């Protein structure tokens, strides 16, 4: 379904601040794969997701989604295939626009924007049904501005928006990290439900090692722009957080006691 081959990206090349954020990253996702991605700060996790989404062009490598080589396409040209939820709930929604307008824009992801009515009555009916799945009562607030919602409600809406038109690939970059622990739990449970329901292919970045193992069917660890660990199947099912940490140290042969994320369990 998704094939990333030898991706390379250097920010600010040729300067003293130059940084190789991705080094020869290759990753293949089968349809329905749910990969969790972990790694220390600056490991290149967000860079990888941004590269796949087309936020910036990669220096090397190819990105293939569902048989189509999208490497040369700009971000808006790939959007038809990709759904995204960002870390900041503000980033995934337009606050000054209503819930129904946000959903309608998302329902036309990757399509030409016409001079047709933006939200139809038909849209409203299906949005109501869809919002009811959240159990947050948003179905009765279709015309409310999104900025009136709480962070958790906004993020739930962002998740619906990313998946209302079923994406070939769903990219989640620490999308529960900015929420309080209980709300984060809710958002993750919702993510799991939606992903299962539609059998979506997912790449999810998380700083929480327990989540990395409990969600999805595969876990990838990045370090300094490289994939240093890729586990799935039975090997992963038996794994504990401690095992994961140990594997990390074994691969790198280093101690990383000062790394906040690797200790966050």
């Amino acid at each position, binding site marked *: 379904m998704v094939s990333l081959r030898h991706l390379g990206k250097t920010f600010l090349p040729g300067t003293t601040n130059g940084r190789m954020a991705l080094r020869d990253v290759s990753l293949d996702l089968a349809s329905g794969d749910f990969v969790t991605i972990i790694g220390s700060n600056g490991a290149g996790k967000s860079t990888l997701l941004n590269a796949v*989404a087309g936020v910036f062009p990669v220096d090397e490598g190819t990105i293939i989604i569902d048989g189509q080589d999208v490497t040369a396409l700009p971000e808006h040209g790939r959007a038809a295939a990709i759904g995204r939820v960002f870390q900041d709930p*503000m980033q995934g929604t337009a606050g000054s626009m209503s819930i129904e307008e946000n959903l309608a824009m998302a329902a036309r992801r990757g399509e030409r924007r016409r001079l047709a*009515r933006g939200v139809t009555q038909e849209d409203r009916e299906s949005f109501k049904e869809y919002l009811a799945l959240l159990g947050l009562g948003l179905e009765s607030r279709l015309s409310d501005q999104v900025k009136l919602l709480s962070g958790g409600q906004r993020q739930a809406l962002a998740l619906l928006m990313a998946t209302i038109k079923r994406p070939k690939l769903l990219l989640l970059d620490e999308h529960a990290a900015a929420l309080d622990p209980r709300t984060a739990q809710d958002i993750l449970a919702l993510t799991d439900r939606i992903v299962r329901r539609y059998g979506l292919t997912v790449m999810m970045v998380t700083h929480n090692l327990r989540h990395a193992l409990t969600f999805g069917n595969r876990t990838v660890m990045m370090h300094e722009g490289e994939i240093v660990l890729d586990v799935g199947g039975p090997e992963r099912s038996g794994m504990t957080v401690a095992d994961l940490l140990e594997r990390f140290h074994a691969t790198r042969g280093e101690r990383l006691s000062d790394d906040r994320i690797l200790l966050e369990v």
Partner: protein
Amino acid sequence: MISLGALGGALEQGLVYAVMALGVYLTFRVLNFPDLTVDGSFPLGAAVAAKLICGGVDPVVATVVAPALGFVAGATTGVLNTRLRISGLLSGILTMTALYSVNLRIMGRANIPLLRSATVLTTLRGLGVPAGVAAILLFLVSAILLKLVLDVFLRTEFGMALRATGDNEVMIRSLGVNTDSMKIVGLGLSNALVALSGAMVAQYQGFADIGMGIGMVVAGLASVILGGAIIAPISIGMATFGVVAGSVVYRFAVFFALRMGFAPTDLKIVTAALVVIALSGPTIRARLGAERRRAPGHGKSEASRENFPARNH
């Protein structure tokens, strides 16, 4: 005594400039883009219309051609900003500056009188509209019609993408919208409205002048801000209605300022001051509020509010 005719004149002006203010609303409020092209595209519309009318073109045709060129002017600013990565403010200033030369080229001189020419107003009179109401009728219908068209447009798929570009570029790009194109089109539409207003103003006042765009952005902004203050922009329809109302109120304010003895040349500083006050209001209020909260007796409630559990639902 203030004559009814003079008040009517202020109303006419408010309505004809409301079309320009709707353009300013589209960039400043909807696209969130501080577009200074306006000071050049307003006289551009006037210059094009005046030149065409003097050349014997039907005034209605002349008035329709003007916004097409206004669109090009706005789109130029959009291209400078999005494709060439020049800052929004500077892009507008560059286009505006270039337009000064363009406008002079079009007109061939600094001022074209239209007093004895056919205009859209004489066309209306020819259709049997009494001379006294021709202007007010035309400008009222134009302002209301364009406001309504804008309302509908902003609720289309395209219009929503335009609004989202102004609200959250990252999001709407992730939904497959080319935000660069949106900005180019949005700036084009905005300046088309501005040029249309310029074309009508030239015919209304009886001349096109190279300097008639000076301070236009600020006047438009003042109208938009005033409108937002008088009419709560709870919906798009109310917001655009507010812009039209704001433009009328602004022209009345100008009218009374002149009657109070302000020299016409001093009006720009008065308008600028008005915009400064309106824009700094929230900042100043926040600062005053912060000081009040720091005062004794208020500290406790503040602390307890901070300790309120950060639960999201």
